[in-house]
């Protein structure tokens, strides 16, 4: 491109008139001047000067920009700015004659468009050369753009002027020379030759410049690559074919380059690292297939051992020869550590899972072996889980209702009603009876449904667990217990009968003995008197025992359910006269009671023994209280009937309190047999009851009797 200075310089040159010049010298001189140009831009001004030197009045060059398609003046000599600017055009302006000439790539004379109506010589030039470019020469190719343009073997559009070998984009320009009309054929030939020579030099310079530009580009690329390499956190090492380090980044230097201040240990570490590295490279190069391997290196600065994964990629020359290796090392120390941690955690997780699994299995085993139907329902009281036993009772929800056993449907309805009540109640736990039909045995089974709620973290009901306890077995045991108790009572009654029979047999001779002793009382001599007294007292004692035993003989009634309250009422009525006579106020508080099982007569005997005892302890009168109460058991199945008999009599001395229920222990001295409470205790125990006594001498005595309730 021509600069203004160039133009000024050119103007200062003295140009000899056309007639004076010698063609050969001029041409040689011009060639030398063009050859002296070092840069492509210097060519145009020199060319224009030489054209003027040939005797042409003026000339200018137009540069073509392939990027924009712009055609604009690049250098001019003896041209006004206005003259120059009129040639400004575009490659795509097809109607412009100059553009037409450019596309034809052949010089032409265009009449009438020069200065002052002169013709204009238009000479397009484009990159062309007789010699191959270096790359084409090296690759032994002939499709170099320079040659192609020179030989015109392939006609390229100006826009596509790019070398397929070296990627070089061609230049194109137009030289315009104003003709005066006086030019000879020879002048024109000189002009043409001059321009062609200039173009040849221009092509050479341009090619050199192209290579220079490429070199500059490469340098930039190398710098960029180096920056990339250095900025990588992982060590990157470039080695040659002999595994010698050509280049390495800072991260690699840490391991393979000796630091400024070196300790012996570090030197050894670096040496060892290098040794290990080249060994790894060698083995990978030999194997050919291996592209990565683990490498333990010692950090020369920190002295820390680190584990790397070295990934190698060979580098090849243009000819396909291996020139070396690029090795990128990835620090996998943390990765491995993390990996190990993950592995350990996984192990822990597996162990925990195993524990959970075992727990679940154990729980399942327990549930399967509970032997009671278990049902789990959700917050909507819908059954979500049931064990095989429950399944037997209710069937599966998923089953087709048509084939579902009606008994199961009915069971399900009962269960649903129960579950709904429980789920939406406020209680955490509940138990209640549930009568279901067994689908196989077709019998009614009484279940005790026990339910509990499981809450989620928000405190809302998540699930309800219901266990159904089959009460059949329990009832059977209960029945057995009752039967056994009845047997005991029966046995006691039988014993009583035996005792009664014996007593009755003893009774008659006793009667005679007693009467005889009475008859003798008048006929005694003084000495016999104490003997008589012994005889009389002991006989009376035997009489009392017999009387007591005769009492047992009365127990001949049937064993069955007994209304304790009516037994009490009977007994109280029987003794009311005697009590009244002794100044004893009677106080009965009877509450509603469930029936007891046993012998009414035996219980009557218990009552009368206790009432008689109470009466005997209240010689000065007092108050006798009989109270009954039902004590229900928490499970709702069993319970107790409590009978309380309290007097305000003389009480039982402390030393007798413990042995009061033993036979022949009495507080009545000679008058008692010591059998009453013993019999009471025997009867109560036979009825599976319990009796307790509390007494304070001078204050009174309280007997508490509990009899079991059987539902």
């Amino acid at each position, binding site marked *: 491109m021509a600069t203004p200075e160039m133009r000024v310089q050119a103007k200062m040159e003295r140009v000899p008139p056309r007639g004076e010049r010698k063609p050969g010298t001029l041409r040689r001189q011009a060639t030398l001047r063009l050859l002296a140009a070092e840069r492509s831009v210097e060519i145009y001004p020199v060319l224009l000067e030489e054209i003027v030197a040939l005797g042409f009045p003026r000339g200018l060059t137009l540069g073509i920009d392939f990027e924009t398609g712009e055609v604009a003046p690049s250098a001019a000599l003896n041209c006004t700015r206005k003259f120059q600017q009129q040639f400004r055009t575009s490659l795509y302006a097809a109607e412009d004659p100059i553009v037409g000439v450019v596309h034809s790539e052949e010089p032409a004379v265009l009449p009438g468009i020069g200065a002052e109506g002169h013709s204009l010589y238009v000479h397009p030039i484009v990159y062309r050369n007789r010699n191959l470019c270096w790359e084409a020469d090296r690759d032994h190719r002939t499709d170099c753009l320079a040659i192609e343009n020179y030989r015109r073997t392939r006609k390229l559009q100006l826009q596509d002027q790019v070398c397929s070998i070296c990627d070089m984009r061609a230049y194109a320009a137009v030289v315009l020379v104003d003709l005066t009309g006086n030019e000879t054929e020879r002048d024109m030939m000189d002009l043409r030759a001059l321009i062609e020579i200039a173009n040849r030099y221009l092509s050479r310079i341009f090619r050199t410049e192209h290579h220079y530009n490429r070199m500059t580009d490469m340098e930039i690329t190398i710098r960029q690559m180096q920056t990339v390499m250095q900025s990588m956190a992982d060590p990157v090492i470039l080695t040659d074919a002999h595994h010698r380090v050509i280049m390495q980044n800072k991260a690699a230097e840490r391991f393979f380059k000796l630091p400024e201040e070196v300790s012996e240990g570090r030197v050894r570490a670096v040496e060892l690292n290098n040794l290990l590295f080249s060994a790894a490279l060698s083995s990978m190069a030999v194997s050919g297939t291996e592209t990565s391997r683990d490498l333990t290196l010692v950090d020369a600065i920190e002295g820390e051992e680190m584990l790397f994964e070295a990934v190698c990629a060979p580098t090849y020359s243009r000819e396909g020869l291996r020139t070396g290796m690029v090795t990128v090392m990835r620090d996998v120390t943390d990765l491995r550590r993390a990996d190990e941690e993950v592995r350990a955690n996984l192990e822990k997780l597996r162990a925990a899972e195993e524990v959970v699994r075992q727990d679940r299995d154990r729980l399942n085993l327990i549930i399967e072996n509970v032997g009671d139907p278990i049902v789990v329902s959700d917050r909507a009281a819908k059954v979500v889980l049931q064990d095989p036993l429950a399944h037997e009772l209710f069937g599966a929800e998923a089953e087709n209702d048509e084939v579902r056993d009606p008994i199961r449907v009915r069971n399900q309805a009962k269960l649903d009603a129960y579950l709904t009540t429980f789920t939406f109640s406020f209680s955490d736990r509940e138990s209640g009876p549930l009568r279901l039909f067994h689908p196989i045995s077709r019998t009614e089974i009484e279940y005790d449904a026990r339910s509990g709620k499981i809450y989620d973290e928000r405190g809302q009901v998540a699930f309800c667990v219901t266990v159904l306890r089959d009460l059949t077995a329990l009832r059977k045991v209960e029945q057995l217990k009752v039967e056994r108790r009845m047997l005991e009572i029966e046995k006691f009654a039988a014993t009583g009968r035996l005792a009664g029979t014996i007593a009755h047999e003893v009774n008659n001779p006793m*009667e*005679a003995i*007693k*009467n005889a002793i009475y*008859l003798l009382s008048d006929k005694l001599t003084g000495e016999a008197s104490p003997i008589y007294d012994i005889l009389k007292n002991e006989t009376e004692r035997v009489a009392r025992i017999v*009387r007591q035993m005769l*009492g047992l003989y*009365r127990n001949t009634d049937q064993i069955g359910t007994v209304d304790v309250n009516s037994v009490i009422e009977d007994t109280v009525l029987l003794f009311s006269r005697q009590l009244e006579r002794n100044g004893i106020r009677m106080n009965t508080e009877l509450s509603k009671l469930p029936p007891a099982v046993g012998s009414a007569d035996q219980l009557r005997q218990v009552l009368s023994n206790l009432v008689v005892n109470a009466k005997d302890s209240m010689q000065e009168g007092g108050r006798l209280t009989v109270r009954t109460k039902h004590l229900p058991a928490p499970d709702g199945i069993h319970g107790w009937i409590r009978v309380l008999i309290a007097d305000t009599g003389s009480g039982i001395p402390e030393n007798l309190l413990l042995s009061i229920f033993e036979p022949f222990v009495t507080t009545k001295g000679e008058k008692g047999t010591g059998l009453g409470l013993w019999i009471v205790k025997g009867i109560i125990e036979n009825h599976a009851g319990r009796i307790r006594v509390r007494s304070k001498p001078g204050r009174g005595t309280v007997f508490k009797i509990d009899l079991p309730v059987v539902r």
Partner: protein
Amino acid sequence: MKRASPKPRILVVDDEPSVLATYRMILQQKGYDPVAAISSAEARGVIERERLDLLLCDLSLEEKNTGFEVIEYARRIQPSLPSVLLTGYATKDIAEKAAQNRIVVLFKPIDIEEFLTTIAAQLRSGHEQQQAQEESRGGKSAIVS
């Protein structure tokens, strides 16, 4: 004229000879005029033959005969005859049945004091009843005479 009061005639019935003997001796000692019978048949004979002031009878006699039958039999002849049933079987049934028939029951073994006071009381009530009957009869005759 004060009528000479004879010893009260008491029939004692018991199938146990020794018991019967001791009852008879006690009654004699106490100044009564007892007559003893060992069986219901013998008792019936006495009842048919004699006028009695009191009947003491054991409940269980020989075979299936009971004291109730003997008392019943005696009352067919002497409707207001005071009777005491002696028994070792202290059952409610017996007590009720006795009460219905105005029969006093003493349970064996019998306390002799109670035995004697019961006899005295029964004799007195029987005597009063008889006097009342006689007075009403005498009253009628007085009106007639």
